[in-house]
């Protein structure tokens, strides 16, 4: 008997081989190592496919994930602003808590973002009493330059919620804003630096 085709083997795996053909297929499989190997491979492939329990997430959830990127990162219509996403290089919440240290309320969160030679230092303090946060920061360059009078924006859900400007030494502050997921952007002459999810709303 010539080698079995993939179709012959698949029909056999499905249990759909004609009764008259089945003994011949089985006999060939027991004597031909190539076909036997192919049968095993196909069997395993079909098992992989059938075992695929990787559930499809709800489409609105996927859409949420897709849209997450758009509010801040899509270039403005007609604009040629260079957008740079700052990398998070330090986060106190990623550090282990100091042993034996107790405090009342949540500790302030200190974050450091970096984009090229520009650092943005951010401290976020939660106001438990009124469910708000205060976000203060400073835009620094590795050189001696200060970024004064620089626009800083706080965006959430695709909308700029708050705007301010840096002071003479590059400091800015957003006092007691409602807790929400915020992206912060700093408009420098070189381009706009974005700090993604500088604060996240609690789930």
């Amino acid at each position, binding site marked *: 008997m010539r080698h079995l085709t993939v179709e012959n083997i698949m029909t056999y795996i499905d249990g759909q081989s004609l009764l008259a053909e089945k003994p011949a297929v089985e006999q060939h499989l027991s004597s031909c190592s190539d076909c036997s190997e192919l049968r095993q491979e196909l069997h395993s492939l079909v098992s992989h496919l059938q075992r695929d329990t*990787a559930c499809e997430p709800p489409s609105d959830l996927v859409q949420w994930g897709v849209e997450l990127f758009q509010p801040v990162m899509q270039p403005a219509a007609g604009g040629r602003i260079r957008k740079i996403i700052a990398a998070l290089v330090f986060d106190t919440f990623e550090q282990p808590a100091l042993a034996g240290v107790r405090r009342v309320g949540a500790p302030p969160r200190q974050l450091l973002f970096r984009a090229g030679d520009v650092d943005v230092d951010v401290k976020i303090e939660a106001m438990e009493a009124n469910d708000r946060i205060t976000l203060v920061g400073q835009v620094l360059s590795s050189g001696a330059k200060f970024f004064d009078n620089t626009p800083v924006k706080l965006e959430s859900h695709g909308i700029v919620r708050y705007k301010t400007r840096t002071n003479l030494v590059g400091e800015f502050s957003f006092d007691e804003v409602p807790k929400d997921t915020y992206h912060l952007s700093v408009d420098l002459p070189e381009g706009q630096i974005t700090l993604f*999810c500088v604060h996240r709303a609690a789930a």
Partner: protein
Amino acid sequence: MEAKYKQYTDTELVSLCLQGDSRAWEALILRYRRLIYSIPVRFSFTSADASDVFQAVCLKLIEHLHELKDETKVSAWLITTTTRQCIHVRSQRFRETGGNEDELEEPADPSENVESIRVQVEEQQTVRESVDQLPDRCRQLIELLYFDNRSPSYEDVGRMLEMPVASIGPTRARCLDKLRTLLRRRGIK
């Protein structure tokens, strides 16, 4: 989504994302949506918790895009991050119900440890990616026959793909053979 984005490697997509290309981000999310979501499902999470994990991982991915630009294996990063997020959520839920955290070493099914979840999810992603690389007709057929929750009959498949029922078997055989070749190249037999 434009077809070319489907062909980009992870590194290319990450790099495009960092240039502000939202279509590259969409391609990344679409490529890995099942991988991310399947991990909380394997942890036997409710759909609400699985959705929370999915959202948290998307946010983390955006935050860490910079670190991933030289990473060839975004999938490995996602598996690790999603698994950690699942463990975090599970431990939160356990604490909320007053459970003992020592019992949290393993996922809900003790026979399935975290490492085996990782291996299975990675393998599954490879299979899905290989299916995505098949010619359109083959991909549609395989998806309908093996991934469609409605389990359509051959008659239904024939109608949907406008092909005679009698040709479904031979076409499936050819498509599986192509898929087998693709998977072999990626080390899965």
